[in-house]
């Protein structure tokens, strides 16, 4: 067992985890943060995507013990003060959610994309999110929602 300190969505957590526990299982089964989904457990589907020190990673391919001393942000951490982020609002507004299973991973990947590239092209959105699979054929709306959130942020910021 390993004792770790990890900051999850801004709150420090002091946990004891077995070596074979993935970050995904730690989030879902120890911290009850079940927004992060368990899809393929092989790094293909992206349903388990979280931010580790601000960078998106597959939490199914990361050991919990590796998160020691680091910051983790899950989909639960994207809303602020109970208010959905502009990106989340855009997903709701444009019906970019069908069954919803891929949505947390989609949101986390898109959040990270907009943080590093606030005005992505359609191709850049598709490239950045190809590690997130949707099986309800919702890609058009998902890409549209990311684009809309980027446009809204640019308008609000007074950019062209």
């Amino acid at each position, binding site marked *: 067992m390993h004792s770790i300190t990890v900051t999850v969505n801004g709150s420090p957590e002091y946990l004891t985890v077995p070596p*074979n*526990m993935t970050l995904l*299982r730690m989030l879902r089964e120890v911290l009850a943060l079940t927004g992060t989904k368990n899809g393929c457990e092989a*790094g293909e589907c*992206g349903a388990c995507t979280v931010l*580790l020190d601000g960078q998106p*990673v597959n939490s199914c391919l*990361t050991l919990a013990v590796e998160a020691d001393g680091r910051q983790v942000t899950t989909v639960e951490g994207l809303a602020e003060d109970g208010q959905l982020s502009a990106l989340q609002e855009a997903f709701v507004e444009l019906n970019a959610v069908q069954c919803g299973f891929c949505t947390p991973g989609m949101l986390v990947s898109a959040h990270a994309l907009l943080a590093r590239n606030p005005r992505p092209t359609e191709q850049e959105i598709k490239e*950045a999110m190809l590690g997130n699979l949707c099986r309800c054929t919702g890609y058009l709306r998902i890409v549209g929602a990311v684009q809309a959130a980027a446009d809204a942020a640019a308008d609000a910021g007074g950019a062209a």
Partner: protein
Amino acid sequence: MLARPGLPGFEYVKASTPAEVHQLMQQEGVRLMMGGTDLLVQMREGTIRPRVVVDVKHLPGMREVEFDEGQGLTIGAAVTMNQLAQHPAVQTSCPALAQAAHSVASYQVRNRATLGGNLCNASPCADTGPAMVALDAAMVLRGSKGQREVPAERFFLGPGRTALQPDEFLTAIRIPPPPAGAASCYLKLGRSRSGDLALVGVAVVGFPDGTESGYRFRVALGSVAPVPLRVPAAEKVLAYDPPGEESFAAAAGKAMDAAAPISDVRAGAAYQRMMVRVLTLRALRQVWSTLGEGR
């Protein structure tokens, strides 16, 4: 509930010195880990069952990229694919490597997957293998009694097999400074535009040289042989015949002849061979056009 059983049990050690790693490697059932993007998948599938997993990515220098005009690039084995793809010195001096790294899997996988892991797994379809061979890279292997360098061409022995001895691990990759005026690229064909494993990968480096043709090219193929394949027959054509459509087509033909792919779930061998010719031709044109900007 979990769709699949979790990872089997193992002991995890975060190594902080090479000596510690060598000591641990004397035991049975030890596997080294960096990004874990291949290792954890193999463990979950049960293809490997290590007793101890030693995390070596925190050893000094493992996650750093250094560039020196005289020495070239020194890339720590645990440098991630995204680090490589975004690194200015890698983009400038070795575009083929930046492009190969960028072509691997998805953005979130590239945040964890490492260059050293990609090379040590020695998958025939690894994207960075052909880039390493074309760029004349050397693998820095650290053994319990010292360190040695092995050229990329001699590092890969077969699918999943490398020149690493039981007491050695890969600490860094050295790439010599590019020859004056050099250009390079990596082109990949997958079943989708991005994110797939390579059906064919082609790395080409070209630079002005004192050959008959005035140029030297290095051509390496991935995914079409048990190991990344350098194509001397193509390079010879390009060293003698003046660069242009005719010599590029002849060289691409030689590359196709050298390829020895096997049919699998992703593509048939005949298709892969034909695509080697197409991608080699495109890569030569692209490198030649970049060389043209400096001519």
